[in-house]
């Protein structure tokens, strides 16, 4: 049984969805971990869920980064532990320096809440191995600050290292400005670290894991982690 820790920060609001979604996977048992806890002993993977940790005060994820549990998350990641940050979780990973770059205000200033197509750019990761390269996934986004920014050199490193796992695209899988919802550089929706054990993405796979939710495409990511 793989044990999955879903971290709860004050203001997290996708924590219950994540626990539900991960618990629905065969061979996975998910549980909440409070942000003041300092140990992740016994867990096989860590989820930083979406929401508005600390009310998004100062910058999204800026204060959550200093929560006691984040020291444990950094140590967990440093020894190769699997960490996935979804939406606000992605913002926290960037603020923590566990992933490069930052998430800034959407180019059109709107809070965008809708299903978007995403192209799987690499299946060579523990987060996307159940998908195929080029596959288009229909998964919802829900954010006001999801515009991925990194300097050119970082973008080149991400590309060269096959670390861009998801890009925004149109329904036919074509990537371009018209299918980029938030102005993210290089149409980035999700990236991993050089060790390929830390993954951040703005879309919510846990909101696309049941036919009742309108899409089951998020399972491609969730099942990658279960396998």
């Amino acid at each position, binding site marked *: 049984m793989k044990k999955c820790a879903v971290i709860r920060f004050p203001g997290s609001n996708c924590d219950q969805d994540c626990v539900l979604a991960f618990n629905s996977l065969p061979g996975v048992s998910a549980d909440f971990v409070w942000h003041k806890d300092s140990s992740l002993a016994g867990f096989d993977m860590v989820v930083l869920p979406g929401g508005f940790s600390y009310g998004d005060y100062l*910058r999204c994820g800026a*204060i959550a980064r200093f929560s006691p549990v984040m020291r444990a998350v950094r140590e967990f990641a440093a020894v190769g532990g699997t960490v996935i940050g979804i939406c606000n979780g992605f913002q926290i990973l960037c*603020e923590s320096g566990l992933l490069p770059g930052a998430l*800034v*205000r*959407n180019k*059109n200033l709107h809070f965008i809440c809708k299903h978007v197509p995403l192209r799987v750019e690499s299946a060579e990761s523990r987060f996307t191995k159940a998908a195929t390269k080029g596959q288009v996934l229909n998964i919802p986004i829900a954010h006001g600050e999801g*515009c991925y*920014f990194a300097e050119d050199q970082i973008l080149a490193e991400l590309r060269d290292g096959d670390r861009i796992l998801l890009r925004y695209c149109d329904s036919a899988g074509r990537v371009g400005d018209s299918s980029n919802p938030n102005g993210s550089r290089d149409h980035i929706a999700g990236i991993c670290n050089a060790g390929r054990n830390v993954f951040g993405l703005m879309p919510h796979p846990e909101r696309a894991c049941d036919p009742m939710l309108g899409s089951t495409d998020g399972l491609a990511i969730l099942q990658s982690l279960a396998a």
Partner: protein
Amino acid sequence: MKIVVTVMPKPSVLDPQGAAAAEAIRHLGLQGVGRVRIGKSIEVELPDSTPEAEIHSVARELLSNPVIEDYEISK
């Protein structure tokens, strides 16, 4: 003492808020509006003896994000 930390987006970072404000200024009829950038100003009360290095550390580690922002400290 009270210090003021001014945090501004780096020139290379998109500032859609600034662009929207620039557009609104034009709508008000002001001619020749150039680039508008929106940042934030943070006042912090501290003991006078607080070492400069610690103030910079807080400004760099928490109050700003060096990936996207520059900061300046004034006293």
